[in-house]
C-alpha cells in the first residue's frame, strides 16, 4: 500500500516528556485554525447558541482535531524524522513514545466525540468522528503515501470544522455550511502546494508523493492556478449566500482578486526565476493564503454581527 517501510515507532521508548510536548502532539497551530473556523461556522448560523454551549462544543471540536493530529504524528513519525520541517516533533525526536501518541490520540478522539454528543447533538458528534477517521485513516494512513492527490483529499478533513460548528447550532447541514466547507477544501491544495514548491527537497527525501515530486513543479504551478480559480468562485458564492453580507462581499472581491493575480504570477514563473530570488513569490503566496482564509472567515463573522444588530436586514442572498 505504501512505498515506505514504517519502522516500529510504537516500541520506541519515550523520554520524560513535558506537558508542552504532549500539547505539541496536538498540532496547536492547526487547532487554532480549527477553533476559529468552527466558531465562525457556529456563530454565523441563523440559530443562537448559549455562549457556554458554544465554548464547550468548539473546545470538543478543537480537542478532536488535536487528537487526529496526535494520531498523525504517531503514524508519520518515520517520515517526520527525515524532513527538516518536522524532525523536531515530539515522536521523531524521542521526547514522546509512539505508544503515548497513539494512546493520547485514541483517548482524546473518543472523549471529544462523546462530549460533543452530550454538549451538542448527534449530527455534530458524528461529523467530528468522521473527520477524525478521515484525517487519521483515509489521509494519514492511506492516501498521503499513495497519491499526489493526497493534499486535495486530505483537505476535506480540515474543511469540516465550520460544518460541525453549523451543525451544533442548527442540527443540520445546509448549502451555507457546504460552501464554508468548500472554501477550506479548495484553499488547502494551493496553500500546501505553494509550501511544497519551496520545501520540495523535504518531501522528496521522505518519499512522500507530493504533486511537486510526482508531477513536477510546472504542473504544480498549473494546479495551484486551477484550484485558485475554483476557490475564488466558491468565495464569491459564500458572499452571495444568506450568511454573506457587504463585508464578506468586499473581502471576497479584494482577496480573490489578489489570489488570482498571484496564482497567475506563480504559473508564469519557472524554476530558474524562482531559484534566483529564493522562491520569494511562492513564499509570499503561502503567507497570503493564511491571511486569505482568516480574512474571509473574519468577514463572515463581522457580517453576522451586523445582522444580529439589525444593521443588515436587506442583504440579497442569491444562493
Amino acid at each position: 500500500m505504501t512505498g515506505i517501510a514504517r519502522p516500529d515507532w510504537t516500541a520506541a521508548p519515550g523520554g520524560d516528556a513535558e506537558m508542552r510536548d504532549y500539547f505539541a502532539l496536538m498540532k496547536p497551530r492547526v487547532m487554532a485554525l480549527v477553533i476559529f473556523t468552527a466558531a465562525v461556522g457556529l456563530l454565523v448560523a441563523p440559530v443562537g447558541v448559549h455562549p457556554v454551549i458554544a465554548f464547550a462544543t468548539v473546545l470538543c471540536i478543537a480537542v478532536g482535531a488535536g487528537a487526529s493530529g496526535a494520531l498523525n504524528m504517531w503514524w508519520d513519525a518515520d517520515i517526520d524524522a527525515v524532513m527538516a520541517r518536522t524532525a523536531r516533533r515530539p515522536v521523531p525526536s524521542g521526547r514522546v513514545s509512539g505508544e503515548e501518541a497513539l494512546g493520547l490520540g485514541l483517548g482524546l478522539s473518543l472523549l471529544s466525540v462523546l462530549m460533543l454528543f452530550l454538549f451538542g447533538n448527534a449530527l455534530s458528534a458524528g461529523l467530528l468522528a468522521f473527520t477524525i477517521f478521515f484525517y487519521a485513516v483515509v489521509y494519514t494512513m492511506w492516501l498521503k503515501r499513495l497519491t499526489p492527490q493526497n493534499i486535495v483529499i486530505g483537505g476535506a478533513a480540515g474543511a469540516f470544522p465550520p460544518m460541525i460548528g453549523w451543525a451544533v447550532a442548527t442540527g443540520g447541514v445546509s448549502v451555507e455550511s457546504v460552501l464554508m466547507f468548500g472554501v477550506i477544501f479548495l484553499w488547502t491544495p494551493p496553500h500546501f502546494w505553494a509550501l511544497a514548491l519551496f520545501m520540495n527537497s523535504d518531501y522528496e527525501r521522505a518519499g512522500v508523493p507530493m504533486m511537486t515530486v510526482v508531477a513536477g513543479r510546472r504542473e504544480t504551478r498549473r494546479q495551484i492556478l486551477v484550484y485558485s480559480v475554483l476557490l475564488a468562485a466558491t468565495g464569491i458564492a459564500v458572499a452571495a449566500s444568506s450568511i454573506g453580507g457587504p463585508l464578506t462581499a468586499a473581502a471576497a472581491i479584494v482577496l480573490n482578486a489578489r489570489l488570482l493575480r498571484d496564482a497567475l504570477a506563480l504559473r508564469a514563473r519557472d524554476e530558474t526565476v524562482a531559484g534566483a530570488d529564493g522562491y520569494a513569490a511562492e513564499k509570499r503566496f503561502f503567507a497570503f493564503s493564511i491571511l486569505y482564509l482568516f480574512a474571509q472567515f473574519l468577514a463572515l463573522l463581522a457580517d453576522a454581527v451586523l445582522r444580529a444588530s439589525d444593521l443588515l436586514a436587506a442583504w440579497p442572498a442569491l444562493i
Partner: protein
Amino acid sequence: MLRPEHELHTRRRGRNGTLGLILGGFVLLVFVVTVVKLSAGQMIEGFDHAYRPALATGQ
C-alpha cells in the same frame, strides 16, 4: 540532611499540576454545561413523569 530535589521530580510535579488543572477545568465545564442545559430546559419537569399544568403557565 535534606536531599536536593532532582530535576526530573520538578518536571513531573509541573506536569502533574497541569494535568490536575485540566481535569479540574473539565469537571467545571461539565458542571456549567449541565446547569445551562437544565436552566434552558426547566419546563421539562412539567412534562417529565406526570403533566403538571401549574408548571406550564409561562407558555
